[in-house]
């Protein structure tokens, strides 16, 4: 046997070198302002080819494409799937525009939209529910809580990224776009693990080996995304899956936490004081100005890259978008590796199983490549305080030199009854137009509105707004709060109800395609919440009233009505009175007897 072993092993080694799976991964670092660092993990996987309408009993090979996801997509006729997990607040002033123009970042919580093929809305909705329930199990998220009351059918945004129709394939049925979001979902390690499971490297090799829950979710902002699209040529189709993890890390804070997990006071000798202001052993004006840093991947992620993903079609690539005047990048591994300049970026590839660590040395962290400012700034706030009504106000600012067209997408739960006639527009905090003003239409070019149906459908609002250059507009909308049924309140009813983020998309003025996408934060709305001991009070009160009523009615039914004189004379004749009379007589007799004796 032994003589066979060597050739077999050799053959295997050859195979490994020659067989390439449709998988690619890359990691990119980008320094941001205020010592923040963006780490962007990207994975691409293609499935093997298949035909769209094949019988159910046919077996499939998925190769590197996840066998967990494939059957779900086929079973539910999903042609496109987009899933987002996000956490934290994105600060566009410090971080610049969203990574990848916001295409792969979701709002706080979980967001899901999918393109489903089906004969009619009903069957598609059934498939959608099946899809969200399967994904719920797969990603350990409460996606199973998605139902018709949180599902919308977007009209102008969230449009298919790779339209199956464009590829010359004749579909048997229609395509439907469904979307839902769970703003309340806390994104956590349990969502990351299944995310890594979808990768052929399973988080054991390649750049995914850096991803551990406690580091990923310790970031300032994090976003995980999965996009599956179907691509066809002729009758042959395949899935393309793109996975992104974008993290923004505050480097000094991460280093500080590694050094001292508990934020103990800085020892007196290490205090950094502003020398221009008086300082001594007791006084110190803090100098929070860190400009020199030295950190490595182990500092940021607690691990080194565990070799490359050797089954990938291209070797694992790590890049950094650095200003080389003050930043330097050094690869630490067993073999000599020097990063090379590829265009703007400094990159290196990993083609072996050695551990790789990257050391960044910074002379002045403020000197970074200029960040692109986002084409739009937006925020949303709640107005009012009362238990029965309130309002939204959305502030949108166009900082660019050109007018821009945006679409504001809102999906508002049914218990928030918005009134479209209260929509007002304020321009630069000075001029206010109500919805019936003719000037209003100069700014708001179109309104798509599907009103809510109680307990069945959310309000779906899409506003096409045109904002002139360097202008700030404020859209405000009023609403009433509906009363929920007793059992409809969640267990922590007094927490309030999360309203999912508004999605704001900037459109290209010619092609009307989305060029940038951002989301506002979630809003927390208080609904009139009863004291849940109320039913018991009601029961007690009702019982009391019932018993009182019973008592008097019973009294009326059983009593005989007589005149007062009659009643008194009868009372005299009653047995009790006679008995009392006899007892009195006896007592008196005994008394007189006693007295006599």
């Amino acid at each position, binding site marked *: 046997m032994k003589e066979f072993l060597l050739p077999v092993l050799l053959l295997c080694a050859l195979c490994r070198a020659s067989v390439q799976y449709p998988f690619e991964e890359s990691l990119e670092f980008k320094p941001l302002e205020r010592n923040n660092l963006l780490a962007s993990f990207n994975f691409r996987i293609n499935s093997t080819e298949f035909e769209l309408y094949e019988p159910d009993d046919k077996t499939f090979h998925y190769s590197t494409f996840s066998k967990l996801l494939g059957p779900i997509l086929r079973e539910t006729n999903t042609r496109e799937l987009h899933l987002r997990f996000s956490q*934290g607040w994105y600060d566009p002033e410090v971080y610049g525009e969203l990574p990848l123009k916001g295409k792969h970042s979701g709002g706080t919580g979980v967001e899901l939209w999918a393109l489903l093929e089906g004969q009619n809305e009903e069957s598609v909705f059934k498939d959608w529910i099946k899809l969200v329930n399967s994904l719920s199990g797969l990603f350990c998220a409460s996606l199973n809580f998605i139902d018709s009351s949180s599902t919308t059918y977007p009209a102008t945004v969230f449009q298919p990224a790779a339209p199956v129709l464009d590829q010359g394939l004749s579909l048997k049925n229609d395509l439907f776009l469904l979307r839902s979001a769970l703003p309340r979902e806390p994104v956590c390690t349990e969502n990351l693990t299944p995310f890594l499971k979808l990768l052929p490297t399973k988080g054991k090799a390649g750049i995914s080996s850096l991803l551990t829950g406690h580091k990923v979710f310790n970031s300032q902002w994090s976003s995980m995304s999965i996009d599956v699209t179907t691509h066809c040529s002729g009758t042959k189709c395949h899935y393309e899956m793109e996975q992104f993890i974008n993290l923004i890390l505050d480097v000094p804070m991460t280093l500080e*936490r590694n050094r001292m997990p508990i934020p103990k006071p800085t020892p007196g000798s290490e205090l950094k004081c502003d020398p221009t202001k008086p300082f001594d052993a007791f006084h110190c004006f803090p100098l929070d100005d860190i400009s020199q840093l030295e950190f490595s991947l182990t500092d940021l992620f607690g691990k080194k890259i565990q070799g490359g993903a050797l089954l990938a079609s291209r070797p694992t690539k790590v890049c950094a978008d650095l200003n080389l005047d003050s930043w330097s990048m050094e690869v630490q591994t067993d073999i000599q590796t020097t990063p090379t300049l590829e265009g703007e970026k400094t990159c290196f590839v990993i083609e072996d199983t050695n551990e790789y660590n990257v050391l960044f040395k910074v002379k002045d962290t403020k000197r970074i490549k200029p960040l692109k400012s986002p084409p739009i700034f937006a925020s949303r706030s709640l107005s*009012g305080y009362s238990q029965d009504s309130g309002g939204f106000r959305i502030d949108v600012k166009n900082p660019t030199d050109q007018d821009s067209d945006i679409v504001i997408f809102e999906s508002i739960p049914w218990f928030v009854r918005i009134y479209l006639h209260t929509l007002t527009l304020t321009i630069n905090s000075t001029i206010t137009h109500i919805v019936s003003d003719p000037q209003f239409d100069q700014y708001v070019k179109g309104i798509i509105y599907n009103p809510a149906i109680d307990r069945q459908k959310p309000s779906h609002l899409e506003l096409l707004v045109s904002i002139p250059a360097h202008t700030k507009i404020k859209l405000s909308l009023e609403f009433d709060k509906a009363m929920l049924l007793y059992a409809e309140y969640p267990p922590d009813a007094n927490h309030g109800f999360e309203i999912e983020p508004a999605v704001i998309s900037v459109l290209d003025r010619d092609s009307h395609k989305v060029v940038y996408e951002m989301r506002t934060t979630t809003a*927390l709305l208080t609904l009139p919440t009863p004291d849940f001991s109320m039913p018991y009070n009601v029961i007690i009160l009702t019982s009391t009233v019932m018993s009182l009523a019973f008592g008097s009615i019973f009294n009326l039914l059983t009593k005989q009505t007589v005149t007062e004189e009659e009643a008194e004379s009868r009372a005299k004749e009653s047995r009790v009175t006679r008995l009392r009379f006899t007892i009195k007589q006896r007592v008196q007799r005994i008394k007189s007897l006693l007295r006599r004796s």
Partner: protein
Amino acid sequence: MALLETIQRKINKYGILPKLVRSLPQVSSLLALLGVIWILILPLDGQFRTTYISENALMPSQAYSFFRESEWNFVRGYRDQIIEHIDDPMEDRHEMLSSWMKTIGYKTFDYRSHNGSRTTYGIYHVPKGDDTEAMVIVAPWMTSDGEKNIGGLALTMGLIRYFHRLSIWSKNIIVVFPEDGQDTLRNWVDAYHTTLDETGGSMESAIVIEYPSESDELDYVEVNYVGVNGQLPNLDLVNCAVMISEHEGFKVSLHNTPKGQLWANDYPSRLTTLFKGLFAMATAGLLPETGGGNGCEAFSGWNVQTLAFKARGTEGRDITTLGRVIEACFRAVNNLLEKFHQSFFFYLLLTPNHFVSIGNYLPAAVLTAASFVISSVSALLTNNNVNNKHVSFNDAVVRVDTLPLINGLLLFAAVTVGSIIFGTVLMWFSSAVSFADNNNLYTKFTWGLILTTTAVSFLPLVLRYKSQPSAAISQTVRIANACSLFYLAFALVSLLVLHFSLSLLISLAAFPLTLIRYGTLSQNRKNSIWLILSSPFLWLAVVGVARKLDFQLDIVRNLIQYFSVSLLKSELQTKVFDTDWTNPVFLQKLLQGPVEIFYGLLTGYRRFQTWTWMVISFAWFPVWIMSLIITCIDVQTGDFEKKKVN
């Protein structure tokens, strides 16, 4: 039912009803007395409860705080700069804080209220939160006593820098530096909920810090919690603050209780705190723009649980201890998953650790309000006409003719509408005429009103005309009297759950109105006394002057509880004899007291949404005027002489 029947039969049989009707005035007075006794009983052992943390999630003081050691150096460093720049122009000062906050990593913005003063605020969007809720820390530049909040500002800067290092936060942190903790802060809070572009989610709690001293140390903390319109923060937050403060070794003072009383926990001390609390709640939000508000009023009505910490004394525990108290409060609120809802929103504190809940104290106001209901019934049943004194009640003849009924109702309606218009016009007037520029006008106006109402109270003594004996007049007056008393009773009852203390205090102050009797003009001399005693403007004068004299109930309590001649002498010496009562400046100050409160009353709704003036001018004042009119009418006939006259 059967028992009631028996009682009713007995009443009929023995003719108790007329006697009962004639004793209604006594019943009414008895009810008012019972109301007062009820309040006096509350501080007795067994009538109140010890406070406890109701919401388990709060877990106050469970973590070791690291706001100590070198953090103190930073506080001192910030303080040096604040002392250096405290007299700079407003814009420069705010810019300085703004730049400091930016360096730490807060997003800073400024808000200009319509009175021109600026509020700088910073938001820390915490990395792990969902950006929907916020906790607010406020350090006004000017404290409620009009001092410069040097220590408070420095401590807040030190704290927010420290907060930014922690990774525990689940709710955003908003830090606010308003010019003052009153109108400027209120305007900012209003704007936050209506127009501000940059917000950090719904506010769960707010903590105001006042520490005017430049010292490194403080002695004890005063916790203010009273909001306008009887709104209080959730008792859980107050309990947290008290528990944490005591855990860190601070004594807690409520309602300006002096240091010597902080250890007292006996009946008189509890009663004093109770009264001070009642008074503070009833008069909350009635301050002129010049200052005096503690910050709790500013957040009131927006569903934000607010506390104000005021550092007292300059020796004892170091300033970072106060910082740790505030940090622990923030941590406690941060632990919350739901909004504050577990504990009481209506309570009276007797000591920082003892309280009376609404179920226990509410009957007091119910009793005093019921006394008005009874007296209104009594008025309707002819008790208030002195001509009826010796005639026994007979339900057959109390019938009211239609015309006097309509007249009486119309008279009352006219007076009420007149008073409402008077109140509303004054409110409009106060918004149109500024206080600062027209102080003289306001002074004249306030004192004019006080003196006029006092003077007209003597009208019944002065008037000497005689009217024709007429049953119509007597019936009209009877209806107007009964109606007005019932109206007041109704107003007080509807107010008492929402604003217990105001309802109780008004019902006590207006109680003499139930004693007013009418008849021939020569007969009712006492009415003037009752009218003066129950005049809203007399009470305005009393409250205003007492505020300017720095009246302290604790001193009165001390005098009574530990009575000795020497103590009384020394108190009289310092408070009465040593005061230069003839000093025009001092007198001017005293006279300004009621004027400021009156202005506060008039502008209360506009500035703080305080209803106090509305309650007074829509309910109390019309009834007072009605009573005045009634006493000025010469009622020659009793209600039972109808047949004889006609």
